């Protein structure tokens, strides 16, 4: 029995040491979560009852950890903690958002409670610029088919794209986070996501639209709608799978309404971008009739509005 007790004692000691050490790995990113600190508190309690000197050491260590991981929001270190990612981690998160799996929660498995701001910020910037550039390119293609279309760089679309995408990735997660926190009292088991984690989920889910927008250059309408639907399905699936564990404890009605609102907003963004930035091309260029050029242009009705009705 003494041997078994000794074994049990050593196990708990190692486990409590490990638990006290893992906060180093989890919380120095400064995500400001409540749950890791909760784990640390539990470890101190269980470890402290097995030795007076260890209790003092571990409580000192956890006190230091808790002081270290909360730099004020006016310091540079606070913001640096949101960019504490490596290249391979960012690529891994992007892959996780591209291939959503029902069991795999994006936040718990990919982010591992360490959200970053690098991914959402630069994915949104890339998407905004790619939207404006490819939208302009479709105008170039349209002009080559129908020379009466006047080409212009349309620089204002960059501003519109940027403002739209950034507002979507910041305001919609804010509303979602607020709503989930308000419903927190209904859930016991799973805590809500922090605001940054919600922003991360939304930001990384927009990544699939970047290649889709480039593929929208192909001037075949049904193919464009197919690509759009695929991208929307992937993106909405990654959002829904990430939100499902938090929402499933709520009532059915609230869960259904919330998830359908999320998917609907996402679909609105996709179709809005498609219609605003990509005008439908005119039909196949008519064989350039020599007699058409002899007539002044303002006598002929412009061909483009009629061809847009497809």
């Amino acid at each position: 029995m003494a041997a078994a007790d000794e074994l049990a004692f050593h196990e708990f000691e190692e486990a409590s040491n490990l638990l006290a050490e893992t906060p180093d790995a989890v919380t120095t990113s400064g995500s400001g979560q409540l749950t890791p600190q909760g784990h640390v508190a539990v470890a101190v309690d269980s470890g402290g009852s097995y030795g007076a000197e260890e209790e003092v050491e571990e409580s000192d260590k956890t006190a230091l950890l808790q002081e270290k991981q909360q730099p004020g929001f006016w310091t540079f270190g606070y913001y640096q903690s949101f960019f504490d990612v490596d290249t391979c981690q960012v690529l891994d998160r992007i892959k996780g958002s591209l291939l959503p799996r029902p069991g795999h929660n994006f936040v718990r498995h990919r982010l591992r409670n360490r959200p970053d701001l690098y991914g959402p910020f630069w994915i949104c910037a890339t998407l905004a610029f790619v939207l404006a550039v490819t939208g302009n390119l479709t105008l170039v293609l349209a002009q080559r088919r129908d020379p009466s279309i006047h080409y212009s760089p349309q620089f204002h679309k960059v501003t519109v794209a940027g403002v739209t995408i950034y507002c979507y990735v910041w305001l919609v997660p804010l509303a979602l986070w607020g709503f989930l926190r308000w419903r927190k009292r209904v859930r016991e088991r799973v805590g809500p996501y922090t605001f940054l984690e919600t922003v991360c989920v939304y930001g990384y889910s927009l990544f699939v639209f970047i290649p889709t927008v480039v593929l929208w250059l192909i001037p075949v309408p049904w193919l464009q709608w197919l690509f759009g639907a695929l991208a929307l399905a992937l993106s909405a699936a990654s959002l829904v799978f990430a939100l499902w564990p938090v929402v499933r404890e709520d009532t059915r009605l609230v869960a259904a309404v919330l998830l359908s609102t999320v998917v609907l907003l996402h679909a609105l963004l996709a179709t809005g971008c498609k219609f605003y930035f990509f005008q439908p091309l005119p039909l196949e260029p008519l064989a350039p009739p020599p007699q058409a050029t002899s007539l002044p242009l303002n006598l002929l009705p412009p061909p483009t509005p009629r061809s847009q009705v497809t």
Partner: protein
Amino acid sequence: MSDLQRLMMEPTDHHAQALFAGLSDISISQDIPVEGEITIPMRSHIREFDSSTLNESVQNTIMRDLKAVGKKFMHVLYPRKSNTLLRDWDLWGPLILCVTLALMLQRSSVDSEKDGGPQFAEVFVIVWFGAVTITLNSKLLGGNISFFQSLCVLGYCILPLTVAMLVCRLVLLAEQGPINFMVRLFVVIVMFTWSIVASTAFLADSQPPNRKALAIYPVFLFYFVISWMILTFTPQ
């Protein structure tokens, strides 16, 4: 030294006078005269420097700054692993380049407000806020380059794209057509690659090794946007 050793071995009071007498014997005042003013050499040097730049002609001042800017242009055009851009950073070069680029890219006032190319202010804002954003990004990722050094490097590496803009404007004076567009596309692509290579040569070393790609990608996006603005420029 034997005197000293003898003195050390007899530490008694009645030898105090002898101690000092011995010291005067071995003092080195006879060899090197320890007299004169004690001035700090740097202070007098700086005072001379200040008065010289105040008294020099304006042409000298301007030429010195222009030569520094020109030297950095050479470093950008032939990127080598040198520290000149980083050590003696200045923001004159980026300002000159940005203003030149914005002046050439702005649309004329007769254009419609909605559909044209960027205005002067838009180009200016894109260049400077883009550079500031990239610098903040690289500092947040843990790079050890200072704020203004990074701004300096990013601004100076716009030089190849400004040259591309000049070439494009010249090419646009000829007749329009697909060959015209191909020439402009080729020039812009070459200069874009040159900009990226130059800025990477200066900036990549200051990043932690497992985050280099994260810091370089925004630079790529920045120069891509500027190249796109140059390529789509249409004179009215």
